[in-house]
Structure formats: structure tokens, C-alpha cells
């Protein structure tokens, strides 16, 4: 094995060699550069191999056998080796990527690049302060040189500003170092750390100055304007290098330096880090230049790593796993994104829509974003999980909150950007494709997935990339070129197969949810057979969601649960985003969902209290004072998914704008994930009190108000799918209400809603979707009179609305009957009033749905409309049959759950299912007799009417009594628009969009704050210098003043 020193030597030597080469030997020079970088990478790689797999001990190197400052002191361990490999690889890729530029600029540029990589490695390796200074100076100078490679004229200014700031940094560093050396007599970091106790009074100041110098290189808020200018104007390959390599190296330098200061300086690092993280993310919200946005994101990520460094003591042996995970994820993702940005011609975020024509590039983009946000299965996800647990276990809740807040902001702007990529108008010549650049960018994707696998292996929580459902979902990525029908068949088979293999191992509750989610999903997917094209991107997304659902049901540990949750969230986000106008709605969906998920993360972390392998069942053992908080955090997280009022505003748009077969997927199935979570939560944690308030009572109110508001808003919608979406809010409110009643029948009712809502909402969404497909509109007032043209869709809708409204004999009535029995024993009666009011309101929107679409007057342009396509009608008919069967024998599904729930309520069974009559403590109900009696009455009367009225003359639609007049045009005679005007007069005030206004104001506030504050980055070098000084002074006053 070659000494790591050779990494430096190779870099220097090759740079030197380049200087000797004749000017014309461009190719040779380039070859030398690549070779040198590859050699450096090979050395670093071989050491990494040795450290990681062979357990070699770190090596300590002293050149020339003396102490610094007369020689160089290196130490190379696992961390150093992996970072050096990162440096060398990014350098190599940069060299490949910049080939044209390098050729143009000649061998000097190549030499500078080599020096840069060598210097960053030096920063990483060096163990003494003086050489740290030297290497950092080298980095600075070579950075200044590399910035100039850019074609952008602003790069010159940016480089200059960078040099100004760097001079300030150097002075700070040098002064600090002199003092420190004077105080301790050594330059070795470990030596200084050991001598810490001997630091004389001014030693703290010396250390402070050094720390400030290194931190300043990390571009902390607000002293980071220069960094942004570099990101914005430099060549993308260099920006990648600057973000990935410089960032990583400097972070490591800071890490080393903090060894000297010891534990008391760690909080400062965390504080500076978290402020930078949050503020940079806020600023990033208002960026529309891609590279500047990436710059802000880089600054934020480095801030996050600094925060983690500050928590080093808490993390213990997880420190390198967490910090490394975030650091590597950041480096790879940022390098990848910068490389991609070199392929995109224009600099606006929307211009990235050019990627859309190339699925591979879109996949790369998604990978990088997921990597940055820390979605499973990428390293950031594991790191965040560990970090959150460590923080929560040690009471650092504020820090955890801030980190999650910042992460949410980051996710918001990154996913917004992703929305642009998929949804904005695709520029014709938006791409500057070049095979080598593309390859470089794609190599980052490979690395990303390798890292994902590696971190999964290291996590100790089980590797997500070995989970079969996830692999099955990922399998659809390479299969995406197949025709949609084939993929659909595979997907359906997968869902049914997985359920078939696993159902024996489910308990009754899991079985119900699994049946709704997996075979239920398969039935809805039948509608997808209708598509003709390849439908690129649909199946990976859909199957990702199903993978998440399948894993969710089986999750035993909190980690598995949370990972499944994130997967299904992301999968459904991609699904929703496919809708034509769904870009803003998908964004609000993902932001709310991730917000909820982060709350869950905090909840789980709080509950685990550092236990690494926390079982879901162990939630029951969580003790005061955490228990109510855990409960609240998890409950809000789950309620975000069920769209309880307050966090519901994402739902209507997301469900309405989704594609025809996606709406039932996300409404009929996805919402149940939240209910499943709530079930699990309530079954394990039961009732909790916070400040004397029973939390389930709060949920009771939320459920009731959701039911009311959801229903109320539904009746005022003109858009059929929006109507159904609001209705989902109401229905989920009912289910939440049932759960929160905390009694046996309440839970049974919630389960009944799970099944019912799945069936009828899927059916209605499909039916309405089919109609919308045929009529080309979702506005109900543009339809009307379609009953004769689309009879099957009408039947599905009619059965659906009878079931939703709870009128006997269909299964909705069962839900109401159990509901009444449940509230008989509920201890808290006031919210019932609201639920009672919500009930009949459902009639209003249901009637409107069927009337304005299928009844009334047929419009001219819809006269030739045909019945919905077979594959959309087929699942509806299956649902009709299922609904009738479930209405007749509800016990088939429910009695087992009833028995399963019994132990939670003192063992007594809730209902008596014996015979045909279902009996409760208070009443009884016999579905078969009801169906029979009503059927006989109905049939008799119908026969009688047929007999007496057999000669009825069918007439055309306009043959109506119109005061002797002739009706004018169907659109004036179809009473449909603003259908419930009198209702709006009476109760419209309840539909004020208070919640929407609240969230909009919040977003607006964040945006305008960012917009105002970012003006301090004037682009002027002197201002930036002042920022830096101000930063140092403020930190000094706040920190040293407090010491």
C-alpha cells in the first residue's frame, strides 16, 4: 500500500510536471491530469478499503521526521480516506466534465485543478494547525484561479470578492494560531487538545479567532454572500467541486479544530450551524436562479453538518454515521445537481423542464433531490433518524425542531423545483447535451444508490434496499419501456401475490387494512388497463406507494414504520404530480405530508429515548412526561394524512387534479394509511392528558369539525372531483371521530368507514373520472342528463351516494348504526351536535353530484357522449357488487375485527353477530331482513306502477311544463350552478377559508422575509467583508461575553 502522503505528492508532482510540458501538448497534459487524479483516487480508495474492511489502524505521518511547523504532520484514518476519495473523485469528474474548458485554458488551469484537489486533501489529512493554514491558503488561491474558468463574466468579480474575504480569514487564522502556539508550544491538534487545560487566559480568544476563520470558510449566515456569488457564476463543474470538496474539507477542518476547543465550544458550532441552516433555507425559498438556489442549499447543508458536529458528544459512536451520511449525501447530490445544471441551457428554475424529454435525467434529478432531502432509502434518511433520536433522547428538542423546520423548507423548494421540471413548459432547445457531461452526472446517481445501500447496511435498522416491496417497485424503473398494459398486469399480480403470500400472518386489523390497500389497489388498477401508451413514470410511483403501504402494515419497529410512511408519501406525491394541473397541489401535498412525517419522526424519537430498536408495541410503555407529547406529535402526523381540518388544505387540489385512476388510489387507499397509524397509536397509547386536557377529546372535536367543514365545503364545489375530495375530508372526520371516542363500537365504526369509504369513494372517483374523461370537463354545471348515455356510471354513482349517505339498505347505514350505538357510551357529548349537523349536509352534496351530472338537461355538445371505457367501468361494477355484499353480510369482515378489538376494552365483545341479526347493548339490526323487506316493497310497488302506467309515453328532454313557454337551450334550463345558494346565505359564513388564509399568510410571510433579508447580499465585496467582520464580532459578543 502506498503512503497517503503520495496523494499530496502526486498532486504536486503532476502540477509541476504540467508546467514542464510544452504548451501544445494539450492532450498529454490532460492525460497527466486525469492520471494524477485517478492515482490519487486509487490511493485514497485503497486506504479506505484497508480501513473499512481490514480494520487497519490510522496512520500518523511526519514528513522530514520533525515537528511542525518545520514539517507536515498527517493523520489518515477511515474518515480521512473516504473524504480524500471523495475529493479525488469529484476532482476527476470535474476534470472530465470541464474537458473543453480545460483545453481552452491550457495546462495552467489543469495544474490549478490538481493543486486544488491536492490542497483539499491536505486540509483533510493535516494534523497540525500551521499546515492547515497553509493548505487552506492553497485552497483559497486555487479556488480563485478556478473560478475564473467560468465563461460567466461575473466570475471575475466573484473571485475577487472571495479573495478579499479570504484575506480577512487568513489574518484571523494566523493571529489565532500564533497565540495558540505561544500558549501551548505545539501546533499539533491533538497536542493542543491535550494542552487545553494549560491554555492561558487569552487562549480562548486565540481559539476563537481560529475557529472563526475556519467557520467563515464554511459560509455561515450572514457572512456568506461571496460564496453565493461563486456558486452562481462559476463553471458548474467547479461549483460542484466547490460545494462538495471544499465544503467537505472545511467541515472536516472545523471538526478537527473543535477537538482543540473541547466540549464547551460545541454549542457554538451547533448554534451557528442551525442558524445558517434555517436562514439559508428560508432564503433559498425565493431564489429563481438554479445555481444560486443550489448555493443556498449548499450553505444550508454545511450548516446542518456543522450543527451535527456540535452535537458530537451526544451522538457518540453514531457521530460519523450521521455526519458522514449527511455530508456524503450533500456532496454527491450537490455535485450531481451542479453537473446537471451544466446540461441545462438557461438559468431559471422553470428552464429545467428541458430535462423532461429524458427520463434518465429526470431520474437522476429525482435521485439527487431525494438524496438531499433525506428520503428513504438514502443515507440522509438514516442519518436524520439517528440524529433525531439522539437529540430527542438528550432533550435537545428545540434543536430538533429547528432542524426539522429547516429540512421542511428545503424539501419545499426542492420539490417545487421538481414540480417545475415535470410540469412547466418544456423549452425546445433547453439542453446542452454532451455525452461526457451526462455520464459524469449519471455516475453520481450510481454513487448515490451505492451510498444508499451502504448506509442501509451500516444503519443497524435493516437495509431498506433489501425490502422486497421496495425492490419490486424499483423494478419498474428499468421496465418502464414496456407497454402500460403489461406493466399494469405485473403490478396487479404483484399486489395480489404479495397479499396472498402474507395474509395468513396478519391479525384481523392488519388484514382489513391490507385487504383494502393491496387487493383493493389491484381492483382500482384495473382501471389503468385503459391507457394505451407506455405511461412512463406511473408504475414506479404507484408501486412505490404500494410498497410503502405493504411495509407500513407489517412494520414492527418505529423505524420500519417511518420508512414505509416516507416511501408511500413520496410514491403518492409522484402519482399526484402526474395530473395535468396538479403542480401546486402536489407541492402542498408533499410539504404537508413531510411536515407531518417530521412530526412523527420527532414523536418516535421522543418515545424511543435512545432505544435503538424501538418496537411499535413499546409505545404503550412510554411514560410521562413524554407520553402525551409523543401522542400529540404522532397524532398530528397521522391526521395530516387523513386531512383533518387545519391541515386539510392540500387534499382537495391533490385529489381533484390527479388522473382518473390516481384519484381513487390516493383517496380510497392512501387516506387509510393515516387511519391505520391512528389505530396503531390509539391501540398502544390509549388516552393521554396534556395540561389536563384529554387529547382524545381534542381529536373528537377535530373529527367533528372536519366532518362538518368537509361536508359544508363539498356542497359549494362546482368541480365534481373537488366535491368528492372535500367529501373525503368529511368522511375521514367521521372515522377520526369514531376512533377518538375510544370505545369498542367507535373503533368498529372507524373500521367500517375504512372499508366503506374505500369502496364508495373509489367507485365515485372512477365514475366521475370516467364522466370527466368523456365530457372533457370536471365542472358539473357543464354536464347534465348523462343518465341515458352513461347508464353504468350512473348506477355506480347512485349506489355510491346511497351508500355514502347512510340510507338503508346499503352498507353506509351499518356505519351510522354502529355510530349511534357507539355514541351511546361516549362520555363526551357536545361534538355530537356537529356530527349530527354534518350528516344531512352530506345529502346536499351527494344529490348535487348525481343531479348535476346525470339528471337534468343534456347539453348539446354532450349528445354523442359514450359510456366510460370498459376498464373504468369494470372496477366500478366490482365495487357495486362488493358494496351490496358488504351491505348484506357486514359481519363477514367485521366480526373478526370485533373480536380482535375486544381485549382492548376489557374483553367483552362489542356486538353480537350470531344469526342474521346484529345485536348491540342498545339495539339491533338485521341487514338481510332490511334488504328483503325493502326489496319486496319496492318490487311490489314497481310492479303495480308498471301495471297501471304501462302506456307511459317517453318524451324528449325539453318536453317540460314551462308556463306554456318553450325552454331556451339546455344550459339555461339545467339548474346546476351555485346549486345551494340559499344554503350559502344561511351558513356560508362557516366556509370562510380561514385555514387556507392561515397557511397562505405563513408562506407569504416566509417568502417576504426572505425577499427583504436577501437584499443584504449586495454583490459588493466590501459589504461582504463587513458581513464577515460583523459576524465575528457578533459571535464574539454573544459567545465570549457569555463565557
Amino acid at each position: 500500500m502506498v503512503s497517503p502522503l503520495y496523494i499530496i505528492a502526486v498532486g504536486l508532482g503532476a502540477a509541476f510536471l504540467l508546467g514542464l510540458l510544452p504548451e501544445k501538448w494539450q492532450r498529454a497534459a490532460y492525460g497527466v491530469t486525469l492520471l494524477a487524479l485517478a492515482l490519487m483516487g486509487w490511493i485514497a480508495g485503497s486506504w479506505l478499503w484497508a480501513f473499512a474492511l481490514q480494520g487497519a489502524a490510522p496512520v500518523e505521518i511526519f514528513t522530514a521526521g520533525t515537528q511542525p511547523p518545520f514539517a507536515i504532520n498527517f493523520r489518515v484514518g477511515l474518515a480521512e480516506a473516504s473524504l480524500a476519495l471523495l475529493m479525488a473523485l469529484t476532482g476527476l469528474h470535474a476534470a472530465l466534465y470541464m474537458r473543453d474548458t480545460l483545453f481552452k485554458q491550457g495546462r495552467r488551469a489543469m495544474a490549478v485543478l490538481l493543486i486544488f484537489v491536492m490542497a483539499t486533501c491536505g486540509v483533510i489529512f493535516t494534523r497540525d494547525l500551521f499546515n492547515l493554514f497553509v493548505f487552506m491558503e492553497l485552497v483559497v488561491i486555487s479556488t480563485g484561479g478556478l473560478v475564473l474558468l467560468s465563461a460567466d463574466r461575473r466570475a471575475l468579480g466573484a473571485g475577487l470578492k472571495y479573495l478579499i474575504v479570504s484575506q480577512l480569514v487568513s489574518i484571523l487564522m494566523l493571529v489565532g494560531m500564533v497565540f495558540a502556539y505561544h500558549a501551548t508550544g505545539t501546533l499539533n491538534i491533538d497536542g493542543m487538545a491535550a494542552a487545553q487545560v494549560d491554555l492561558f487566559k487569552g487562549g480562548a480568544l486565540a481559539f476563537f479567532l481560529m475557529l472563526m476563520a475556519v467557520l467563515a470558510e464554511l459560509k455561515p449566515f450572514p457572512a456568506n454572500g461571496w460564496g453565493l456569488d461563486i456558486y452562481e457564476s462559476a463553471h458548474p463543474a467547479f461549483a460542484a467541486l466547490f460545494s462538495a470538496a471544499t465544503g467537505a474539507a472545511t467541515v472536516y477542518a472545523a471538526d478537527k479544530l473543535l477537538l482543540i476547543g473541547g466540549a464547551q465550544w460545541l454549542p457554538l458550532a451547533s448554534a451557528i450551524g442551525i442558524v445558517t441552516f434555517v436562514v439559508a433555507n428560508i432564503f433559498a425559498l425565493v431564489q429563481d436562479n438554479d445555481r444560486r438556489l443550489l448555493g443556498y442549499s449548499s450553505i444550508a447543508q454545511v450548516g446542518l453538518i456543522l450543527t451535527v458536529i456540535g452535537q458530537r458528544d451526544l451522538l457518540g459512536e453514531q457521530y460519523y454515521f450521521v455526519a458522514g451520511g449527511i455530508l456524503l449525501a450533500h456532496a454527491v447530490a450537490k455535485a450531481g445537481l451542479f453537473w446537471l445544471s451544466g446540461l441545462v441551457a438557461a438559468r431559471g428554475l422553470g428552464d429545467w423542464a428541458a430535462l423532461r424529454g429524458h427520463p434518465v435525467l429526470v431520474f437522476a434529478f429525482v435521485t439527487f433531490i431525494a438524496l438531499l432531502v433525506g428520503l428513504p432509502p438514502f443515507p440522509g434518511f438514516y442519518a436524520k433518524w439517528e440524529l433525531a433520536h439522539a437529540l430527542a433522547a438528550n432533550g435537545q428538542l428545540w434543536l430538533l425542531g429547528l432542524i426539522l423546520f429547516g429540512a421542511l423548507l428545503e424539501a419545499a423548494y426542492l420539490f417545487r423545483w421538481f414540480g417545475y421540471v415535470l410540469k412547466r413548459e418544456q423549452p425546445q432547445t433547453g439542453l446542452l447535451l454532451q455525452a461526457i457531461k451526462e455520464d459524469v452526472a449519471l455516475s453520481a446517481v450510481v454513487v448515490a444508490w451505492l451510498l444508499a445501500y451502504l448506509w442501509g447496511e451500516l444503519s443497524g435498522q435493516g437495509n431498506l434496499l433489501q425490502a422486497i416491496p421496495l425492490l419490486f417497485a424499483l423494478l419498474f424503473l428499468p421496465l418502464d419501456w414496456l407497454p402500460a398494459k403489461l406493466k399494469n398486469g405485473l403490478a396487479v399480480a404483484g399486489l395480489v401475490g404479495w397479499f396472498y403470500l402474507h395474509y395468513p400472518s396478519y391479525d384481523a386489523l392488519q388484514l382489513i387494512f391490507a385487504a383494502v390497500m393491496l387487493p383493493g389497489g389491484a381492483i382500482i388498477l384495473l382501471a389503468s388497463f385503459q391507457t394505451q401508451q407506455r405511461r412512463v413514470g406511473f408504475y414506479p410511483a404507484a408501486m412505490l406507494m404500494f410498497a410503502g403501504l405493504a411495509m407500513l402494515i407489517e412494520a414492527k419497529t418505529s423505524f420500519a414504520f417511518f420508512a414505509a410512511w416516507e416511501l408511500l408519501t413520496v410514491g403518492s406525491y409522484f402519482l399526484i404530480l402526474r395530473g395535468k394541473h396538479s403542480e401546486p397541489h402536489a407541492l402542498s401535498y408533499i410539504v404537508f405530508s413531510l411536515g407531518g412525517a417530521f412530526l412523527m419522526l420527532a414523536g418516535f424519537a421522543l418515545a424511543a429515548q435512545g432505544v435503538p430498536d424501538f418496537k411499535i408495541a413499546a409505545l404503550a410503555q412510554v411514560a410521562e412526561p413524554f407520553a402525551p407529547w409523543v401522542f400529540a406529535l404522532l397524532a398530528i402526523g397521522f391526521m395530516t394524512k387523513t386531512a383533518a381540518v387545519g391541515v386539510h388544505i392540500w387534499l382537495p387540489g391533490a385529489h381533484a387534479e390527479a388522473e382518473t385512476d390516481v384519484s381513487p388510489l390516493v383517496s380510497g387507499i392512501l387516506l387509510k394509511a393515516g387511519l391505520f397509524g391512528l389505530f396503531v397509536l390509539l391501540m398502544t397509547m390509549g388516552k393521554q392528558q396534556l395540561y389536563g386536557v384529554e387529547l382524545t377529546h381534542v381529536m373528537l372535536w377535530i373529527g367533528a369539525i372536519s366532518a362538518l367543514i368537509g361536508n359544508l365545503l363539498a356542497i359549494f364545489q362546482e368541480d365534481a372531483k373537488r366535491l368528492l375530495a372535500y367529501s373525503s375530508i368529511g368522511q375521514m372526520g367521521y372515522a377520526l371521530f369514531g376512533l377518538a371516542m375510544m370505545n369498542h363500537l367507535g373503533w368498529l365504526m372507524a373500521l367500517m368507514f375504512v372499508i366503506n369509504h374505500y369502496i364508495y369513494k373509489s367507485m365515485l372517483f372512477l365514475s366521475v373520472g370516467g364522466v370527466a374523461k368523456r365530457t372533457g370537463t370536471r365542472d358539473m354545471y357543464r354536464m347534465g342528463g348523462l343518465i341515458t348515455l352513461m347508464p353504468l356510471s350512473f348506477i355506480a354513482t347512485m349506489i355510491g351516494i346511497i351508500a355514502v349517505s347512510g340510507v338503508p339498505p346499503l352498507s353506509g347505514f351499518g356505519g351510522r348504526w354502529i355510530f349511534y350505538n357507539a355514541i351511546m357510551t361516549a362520555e363526551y357529548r357536545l361534538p355530537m351536535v356537529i356530527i349530527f349537523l354534518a350528516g344531512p349536509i352530506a345529502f346536499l352534496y351527494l344529490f348535487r353530484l348525481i343531479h348535476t351530472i346525470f339528471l337534468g338537461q343534456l347539453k348539446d355538445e354532450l349528445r354523442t357522449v359514450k359510456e366510460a371505457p370498459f376498464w373504468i367501468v369494470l372496477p366500478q361494477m366490482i365495487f357495486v357488487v362488493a358494496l351490496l355484499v358488504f351491505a348484506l353480510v357486514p359481519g363477514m369482515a367485521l366480526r373478526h375485527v370485533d373480536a380482535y378489538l375486544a381485549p382492548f376494552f376489557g374483553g367483552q365483545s362489542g356486538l353480537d353477530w350470531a344469526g342474521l341479526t346484529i345485536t348491540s347493548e342498545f339495539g339491533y339490526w338485521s341487514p338481510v331482513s332490511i334488504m328483503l323487506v325493502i326489496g319486496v316493497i319496492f318490487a311490489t310497488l314497481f310492479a303495480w306502477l308498471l301495471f297501471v302506467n304501462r302506456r307511459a309515453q317517453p318524451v324528449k328532454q325539453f318536453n317540460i311544463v314551462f308556463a306554456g313557454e318553450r325552454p331556451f337551450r339546455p344550459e339555461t334550463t339545467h339548474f346546476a350552478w351555485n346549486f345551494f345558494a340559499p344554503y350559502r346565505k344561511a351558513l356560508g359564513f362557516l366556509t370562510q377559508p380561514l385555514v387556507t388564509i392561515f397557511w397562505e399568510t405563513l408562506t407569504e410571510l416566509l417568502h417576504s422575509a426572505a425577499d427583504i433579508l436577501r437584499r443584504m447580499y449586495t454583490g459588493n465585496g466590501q459589504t461582504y467583508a463587513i458581513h464577515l467582520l460583523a459576524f465575528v464580532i457578533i459571535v464574539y459578543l454573544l459567545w465570549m461575553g457569555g463565557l
Partner: protein
Amino acid sequence: MRIPWALLTLFIVINYGLLMTALVQKIGARVGRRHGIPIWQNYIDMLKNYALRTSITHGVMFYLGPVFRLSGGVGLLLFVPSIYGSEMFANFSFAGDLILALYFVFFGTLGMALGAAESGHPYSAIGITRGLSQMTAAELPFALAVFAVALQYQTLSVTEIVAAQQGGVLHWTLFTNPLAVAAAMMSFLGSMMRPPFDVVLAPQEIPIGPPTEYHSSFLAMMQTNRALFPVAKIVVYMNLFFGGAGSWPEFFLKVFLIYMVSAFVGVVFPRFRVEQSIRWFLIWAVPLGILAVVLV
């Protein structure tokens, strides 16, 4: 064996309903110093409507609307025991309890709304809009009252609720839980299609609203329901709040008296607009219902 008895109940109630509504109309006429319709006028009208020679239909749902409507009425009657203590006139109450009756009320309404809507007449749709809007508010106090009564007697079985009220007038829910009864009776006014809550039909404004296109035997069926449904509904009220009926004469008397409540109010008050009636229910009736539920 229940079926003939149920048919008998049906027969009795339809005839009683036809006569009683005519009688009440006659009483109303007498208040206006008119002679009023003959007591058998309802029969004649119904017969005439069945005897019409031509009719038209706007489509399948239009045809089925009256069937739904009458099924709703018949079903509601038969799912509730008519005579307390009589095995013969318990009808099909074994199929379900109070909740079944409560929700089955909507069966006819919904079916009728669908049928009327298919006629394509805008006035039908407007009438339905009004009816449904008003219903949401009018049913609320009733639901609360039912809940209060169920809580009071700790059962949802109609028979048991009636049983609990036996043994003297003072055992009636009317006296044991007056708040609930007051709320329910207010709701009752709203569901009887009489002034001040008859804006749904509004003959001069939207020619009788939903059924504006219905005629001949369709109309005859709805007329049958018009006689049957109020009685069926009153039976529920009677059983819940007024001690039920032990025999047919008691049944006739109580139903008549309860019906007269809405008739009395109807001849005195003018018509509410929809939003006014919604507010009226929410302001006056619902608080009573809430009190009943909370205090029980």
C-alpha cells in the same frame, strides 16, 4: 304470518291518513269560514289520477321516483311497531331499531329527488335544493332529541322506549324529558311541508317544486305517500315522546293530535325563506336539543 298483519296495518294507516288529511284540511277551511272539501275527496282525487288515460315519462329514474317515495313511506311505517304490546301490529320492527327508522326517512326523499330531477325541470331542482337545505337544519334537533331519548332510556329499541313510558301520562317522555320533546316537535314542523316551512312546494312560485312534472298514477302514488308518510313519521314521534299507542283508537287520537300541531302552526304563520328557516332551526330548536342531550 307477519305479512298479512303488516298489510292490514298498511291498509288501516293509508285509509286513516287519507281521511285525516282531508279532515284537517276541512278544519282549516272552517277556520276560513269555508265549507271545505268533502271528507272523501282524497279518495276521489287518487282514483281520478289512477284513471287518467295518458301519461308521459322522462326516463327510468323519473319512473322510479314515486316508487322510491312510496317504498320509503311504507318501509318507515313497517319498520316501526304501530301498536304497543301487540304482536300482530309490531310489523317488521325485528329488522332494525330506531336508527333504521331514523335513516329510512331519507330513502323516499332521496329517491324522489332523483326521480324529480330526471324530469329536467329547473323548478324540480330548485324545489329539491330548498327541501334538502331545509332538511339539513330541520333534522338536526330531531336527531339530538332521539339521541337524548335513547340516552334517557339506555336503549335504541323502539319497543323498549315505549315500554319505559307506560304507566300513566306522566311517564311519557313529554314530561320526563320536555326539552327533547320540544326540540323534536320543532323539527316536526319543519318536516311536515306546512307553513311556515313549505317553501319547498311554493305552488305559485315554483309550481309545487319537485313533483311539478308528476301526474296520473305517478302522482297518485305520491298522494298515497302523502297520506301515509306523515302518519308513519308521527308513529315514530308518538312512540318516542308520547307513550306510544296501546290500541287503534288511541293510535288514531294521538296521531291526529300530533298532526294538528303542525296544522295549527301552519294556519297561523306565513312562509319562511330557506335561509330563514335554517336560521330559525339553528337558533331556536338546536339549543333545546343540545340542552336535552347534555342534561339527560
